[in-house]
């Protein structure tokens, strides 16, 4: 299975019945395809609605119903449209249970950097800073390394998106919880050894005493 697909499936297991969820662009968006059976979650789109549904069938696109990446989507029955201040009232006010985002870097203090590389790429933070600050649970979903370089660091050196707000890091190698004591490896993909995961991680990992096999 594709790494991204694997990560998205594991993230989906974090969803609980009734959760309000905001998914970032890219890998996080794939989580929507794997909501566990028997539960209802409500996807929020920060550009102004709740009840985000799948892409419309060809020919049924409504150009005014798009997600935060400007792709045509649908709204499910029971959804609602609102303006940007209400949308971010929902986000900042703690009414989003889970937000799932990618990262350029994340560190052992729960700091996240995902909005700019000085001198190279400055897309802007969009809604990410509000989402990471406001959501009850922040999950970073990403490949563990980029071109062999560490992304899970002792300390981020790129400009932060938010300080100390990340709760969980899910990669193809394992599931890592951010705690007061540092990063705790809670689950490991059996395709890797603990040593391999540590080698791919700059920050020191605390191995959970009940370390589990990462399953999807």
């Amino acid at each position: 299975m594709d790494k991204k697909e694997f990560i998205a499936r594991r993230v989906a297991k974090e969803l609980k019945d009734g959760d309000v969820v905001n998914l970032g662009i890219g890998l996080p968006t794939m989580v929507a395809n794997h909501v566990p059976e028997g539960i209802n979650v409500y996807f929020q789109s920060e550009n102004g609605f709740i009840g985000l549904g799948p892409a419309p069938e060809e020919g049924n696109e409504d150009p005014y119903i798009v997600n935060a990446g400007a792709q045509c989507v649908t709204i499910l029955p029971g959804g609602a449209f609102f303006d940007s201040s209400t949308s971010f009232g929902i986000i900042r006010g703690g009414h989003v249970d889970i937000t799932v985002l990618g990262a350029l870097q994340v560190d052992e203090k729960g700091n996240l950097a995902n909005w700019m590389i000085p001198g190279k790429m400055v897309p802007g933070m969009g809604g990410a800073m509000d989402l990471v600050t406001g959501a009850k649970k922040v999950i970073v979903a990403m490949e563990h390394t980029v071109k062999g370089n560490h992304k899970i660091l002792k300390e981020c050196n790129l400009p932060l998106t938010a300080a100390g707000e990340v709760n969980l890091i899910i990669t193809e190698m394992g599931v890592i919880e951010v705690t007061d004591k540092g990063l705790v490896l809670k689950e490991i993909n059996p395709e890797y050894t603990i040593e391999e995961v540590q080698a791919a991680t700059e920050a020191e990992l605390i191995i959970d005493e009940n370390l589990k096999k990462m399953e999807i």
Partner: protein
Amino acid sequence: MNKIVSIEEAISHIKDGMTIMIGGFLGCGSPHRLIDALVEKGVKDLTLICNDSGFPEIGSGKLVVNRQIKKLIASHIGTNRETGNQMNAGEMEVVLVPQGTLAEQVRAGGSGLGGFLTPTGVGTVVEEGKEKIEIDGKTYLLELPLRADVALIAGHTVDKFGNIVYHGATRNFNNLMATAADLVIVEAEEIVEVGAIDPNHVVTPGIFVDYIVGGGK
């Protein structure tokens, strides 16, 4: 009070050096015909407040490409390479603002608030130069209101008094910017008679709207 005017007349109020707000999110819910008219008119040295700078060929991004913007206040510029180019070349000042903060700044500007405290941006470069205030042990940034000389917004169904109903995700910043500018121009998808919109369904009350252009239908 007839608020319906031609695009030319509406745009005639926008002068070089003004601060303008333009609604929309990556072009969705942007007043496209007003933007095209502004591009054609060529007013310059504008300060533009909008969620994002759209795409080079869509939304407020056209004004960037046409080099009419001196200063941009937005949350996202990643979909319009020309914005980054002008920023890096020092040709345009760009102030990046978290999207929720930007929305709230516009709302504050329109509702007479002197500012608000948000946790967003604490511990990041966003806090630079801003006052930090601690409330109940939590740190917040004091963010200030934004206003403009002119707001250009788009509405779906607009009655002749200016009451607006939006469709889908087009509401975004339009409903907020309508309150926060000295002059507000709405581009209507469809103009209807006063009384045709249920007062329970109005999203932007007509008292905020000065001019109406349109309607496509």
